[in-house]
C-alpha cells in the first residue's frame, strides 16, 4: 500500500498540470479533482501504470450542488487489488452542459453505473454506447435525484410504452438465420428472481444476443434517504438486500460512524459480527437453494429453508422481526440480545452444518448438477474485475479479494477464518465458494460468540444515540437530549465518506455526503450485484436458455439491492 505522496507522484508523471488534476487535501480517501478534458487519459493512466494499477472501478455516481457554479459532480471510486489502495476522482461540470466523457472504454464496469447517473442525475456521458434510462421507466420525465425534483412526482407508464432493445425489433431472416427468434424472459418469470427482464435472440436454441432490463423494483432509496433523518434511513437499508438485511444496516452505520468519528462499543460490534455472519449464511442458503430449485432440484431447497427458519428464530428473538431487522443504530444496536441468545446461536452452529451436509451429499457430486453447471457461465478473473465484480462471484474466478481480510473492520482481523476461492469461474465454482463460505461464517460466529464481551450496546454520546428510556423519564437533561434527537435528528459533520463492507454479494459501499444538517445530503449505494449483473447479458452468448437460468441463479441478483 503506497502513500498518498507516491500515488500523487505517479499521477504527476503524466499529468503535471495542477489545473487539470488537483489533489483535494484531507478526506477519508485520497481525492482528485479532475478536469473533464483529461478524464479518459487519466483513467487509462490509472489503470495501466503498474504503480497505480487501478483495475477495479467500484462506482460512478452523480451529486447535485445547485448553489455551486459547477452544479454537478461525477464521482468515481477506484480500487487496486494488487496494491490495496483506493482513490476517488471528482469531475465537476456546469449546469448548462452536464457532459463528461464516458470511461466505459477503460473499465467496462462503468456501463450501468453511468447509465444510472444519467437516468437519475441527468449527466450525459459522451461516448457511452447505450446511454438510456436504466432504473426509471421510459415515460419518466426529468431526473429524480436532482435537488429540485419533487420526491412524490410520479409518471405513469402505459402498456405498450415499455422499452425494447433496438436490435430486438429488427427482423433477421436470411439464409443463415432462418431459425432466429426473439424471446422475452421476465420480468415476471419463475426464474427471474423477482423482477429482472432479459431479452434474448435465439438461433435455434443458442443465445446469440441478449440485453437485460432492470429497474422494475426501483424504490427510490436514495431520494427517500435524503428526506429522512440519519437513523430513519436504517429501515430503508434493510430492504436493499432483503435476504441479509442486517449487513446493509451494518455497512451504513459504519459509514456514518466513520463520518462522525465514533465507534460502537465492543459488545455491539460483536453482536453485529454474529448477526452479519448469520445473515450471510441465510443469504447463501437462499441463493444456493433457489439456484438448485431453478435447475430442477427441489429437495435441497427444503433442507436449506429449514436452516433459514432456525436462523429466523434467533433473529426474531433479538429484534422482533424475521426479515427486515432494523436492529442496527448509528453508534451501536437498538437492544441488547436476549438472555438465551448464546443457546440459540449454539443450536444453529450444530444444526446448520448438518443440513448443509445433507444438501452437499445430494448435490455436490451429483452428475446432473455437475453437467448443468460446470463450464456454464464461465468468466475469467480479468473480465470479472473489469466488470466490477466483487464478493463470492469474484472469488469463484480465483481472486482472493474479501473486504473483511483486506480492509478489516469491526474486529474481523481478530478472528480466524479463511477466504475460500475457486478457479473455475463458472456456476459450479460459485456454488462451491458459497458452500464453503457458509462454513467459514459459522466458524466466525462461534469465535465471536465465545469472545462476546459484556458492556453497553450503544455509545453514550447523546449527540448520536438516544439516552436510556429510564433516564428520559427521570432526568431533565436526558429528556432534552431525547427531544432534540427525535425532533431534529443527529447532526453529522459536513463532509463525505465512502464506507464499504463485505456483504453477502460482495463489496457494499455507501458514498455519503453530509452538509451538516439532520438529514443526509446524498447517499449513493454501491450495490455489489449491480456490477455483477451487468456482465450477465454478455455471459449468455453461446449458451442455451436453461443455462441462462442456471447462471442467473448463481449470480444471486437481489432486485432490492440492484434497483434500490
Amino acid at each position, binding site marked *: 500500500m503506497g502513500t498518498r505522496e507516491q500515488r500523487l507522484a505517479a499521477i504527476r508523471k503524466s499529468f503535471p498540470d495542477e489545473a487539470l488534476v488537483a489533489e483535494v487535501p484531507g478526506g477519508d480517501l485520497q481525492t482528485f479533482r479532475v478536469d473533464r478534458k483529461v478524464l479518459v487519459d487519466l483513467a487509462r493512466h490509472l489503470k495501466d501504470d503498474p504503480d497505480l494499477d487501478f483495475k477495479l472501478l467500484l462506482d460512478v455516481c452523480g451529486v447535485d450542488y445547485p448553489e455551486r457554479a459547477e452544479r454537478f459532480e461525477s464521482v468515481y471510486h477506484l480500487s487496486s487489488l494488487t496494491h490495496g489502495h483506493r482513490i476517488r476522482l471528482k469531475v465537476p461540470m456546469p449546469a448548462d452542459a452536464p457532459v463528461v466523457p464516458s470511461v466505459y472504454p477503460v473499465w467496462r464496469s462503468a456501463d450501468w453505473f453511468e447509465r444510472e447517473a444519467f437516468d437519475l442525475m441527468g449527466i450525459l456521458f459522451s461516448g457511452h454506447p447505450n446511454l438510456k434510462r436504466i432504473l426509471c421507466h421510459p415515460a419518466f420525465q426529468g431526473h429524480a435525484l436532482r435537488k429540485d425534483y419533487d420526491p412524490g412526482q410520479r*409518471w405513469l407508464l402505459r402498456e405498450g410504452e415499455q422499452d425494447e432493445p433496438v436490435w430486438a425489433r429488427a427482423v433477421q431472416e436470411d439464409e443463415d438465420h432462418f431459425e432466429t427468434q426473439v424471446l422475452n424472459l421476465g420480468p415476471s418469470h419463475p426464474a427471474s428472481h*423477482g*423482477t429482472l427482464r432479459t431479452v434474448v435472440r435465439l438461433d435455434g436454441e443458442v443465445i446469440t444476443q441478449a440485453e437485460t432490463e432492470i429497474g*422494475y423494483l426501483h424504490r*427510490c432509496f436514495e431520494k427517500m434517504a435524503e428526506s429522512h433523518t440519519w437513523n430513519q434511513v436504517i429501515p430503508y437499508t434493510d430492504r436493499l438486500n432483503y435476504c441479509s438485511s442486517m449487513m446493509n444496516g451494518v455497512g451504513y452505520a459504519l459509514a456514518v460512524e466513520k463520518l462522525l468519528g465514533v465507534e460502537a462499543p465492543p459488545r455491539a460490534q460483536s453482536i453485529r459480527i454474529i448477526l452479519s455472519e448469520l445473515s450471510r449464511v441465510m443469504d447463501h442458503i437462499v441463493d444456493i437453494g433457489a439456484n438448485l430449485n431453478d435447475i430442477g432440484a427441489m429437495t435441497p431447497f427444503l433442507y436449506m429453508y429449514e436452516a433459514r*427458519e432456525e436462523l429466523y428464530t434467533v433473529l426474531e428473538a433479538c429484534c422482533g422481526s424475521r426479515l427486515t431487522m432494523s436492529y442496527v443504530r448509528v453508534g451501536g444496536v437498538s437492544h441488547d440480545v436476549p438472555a438465551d441468545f448464546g443457546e440459540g446461536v449454539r443450536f444453529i452452529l450444530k444444526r446448520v452444518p448438518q443440513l448443509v451436509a445433507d444438501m452437499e451429499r445430494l448435490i455436490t457430486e451429483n452428475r446432473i448438477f455437475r453437467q448443468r453447471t460446470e463450464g456454464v457461465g464461465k468468466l475469467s478473473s480479468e473480465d470479472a474485475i473489469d466488470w466490477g465484480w466483487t464478493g463470492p462471484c469474484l472469488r469463484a474466478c480465483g481472486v482472493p479479494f474479501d473486504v473483511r481480510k483486506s480492509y478489516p473492520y469491526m474486529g474481523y482481523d481478530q478472528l480466524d477464518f479463511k477466504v475460500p476461492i475457486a478457479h473455475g469461474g463458472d456456476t459450479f465454482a460459485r456454488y462451491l465458494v458459497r458452500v464453503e463460505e457458509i462454513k467459514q461464517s459459522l466458524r466466525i460466529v462461534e469465535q465471536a460468540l465465545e469472545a462476546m464481551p459484556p458492556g453497553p450496546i450503544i455509545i453514550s454520546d447523546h449527540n448520536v444515540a438516544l439516552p436510556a428510556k429510564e433516564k428520559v423519564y427521570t432526568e431533565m437533561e436526558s429528556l432534552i437530549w431525547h427531544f432534540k434527537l427525535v425532533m431534529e435528528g443527529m447532526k453529522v459533520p459536513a463532509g463525505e465518506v465512502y464506507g464499504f463492507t463485505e456483504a453477502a454479494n460482495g463489496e457494499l459501499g455507501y458514498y455519503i455526503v453530509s452538509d451538516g444538517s439532520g438529514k443526509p445530503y446524498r447517499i449513493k449505494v454501491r450495490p455489489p450485484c449491480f456490477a455483477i449483473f451487468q456482465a450477465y447479458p454478455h455471459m449468455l452468448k453461446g449458451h442455451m436458455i436453461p443455462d441462462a437460468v442456471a447462471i442467473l441463479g448463481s449470480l444471486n441478483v437481489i432486485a432490492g439491492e440492484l434497483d434500490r
Partner: protein
Amino acid sequence: MKREDATRQLLPTVVPGVREVGAAERQPDGSQIFLTTRWEKLLDAARKNSLWPFPFGTACCAIEFMSVVMSHYDLARFGAEVVRFSPRQSDLLIVAGTVTDKMAPVLVRIYEQMAEPKYVISMGACACTGGFYRAYHVVQGIDEFIPVDVYVPGCPPTPEALLRGVVRLQEMIGSGETQYQRNVAAQKAAASVGE
C-alpha cells in the same frame, strides 16, 4: 350439458329427487341422507379449498411468501400449495412486494390474463399502500390498478398473517364477498332489472 345433468353426474346419489337413494346411503335409523345446496355454493366450496396461487413476488415480501410455502408453515394445509407461475393456471394472485410504475403494466397484464374466477391478495404494506416508499417510482397501492380482495398488513407480514389472509379469502369466497363474486352478482341484478 344442462345444469341439472351436470349435477346428476357430480352427485349421483345424494341429491334428492334425482335418483332413488339406495339402502347403503340410509342412516342407521333408516332415514335418508339429504344434502341440498345451490350450484354456485357448491362451486365456491370447491374453489375456496383448492386455490392455485400465482406469486407475483417482486421484493422482500416474496421471501416471506417462500417461507409460507415451505415446510415450516406449509400453505398446503389450506389447500393452496399448487403454486403456478402461469396466470392461465392460477386463480389467486398474491402480490408480494413493492410494485413500481415500471412494473404496473406487467401486473395489469397478468391480472387480465388470469381466467375467471380470480381473487387477489395484496401482501405487505407496499402492495397495499406503497408502504414507506412515498416516492416518484412506486405505485401507492395496487388497487390503483386492479381490484383487491384481501389486504395483509405488515412489512413484511409474518407468515401467520399471510395464512390468515388466505383463510379470510376462503371465508369470503364461501360467503360471496369477493370482488369477482360481487361483480357477477351486480351484473345479474342489472340483467334482471333489464328484463
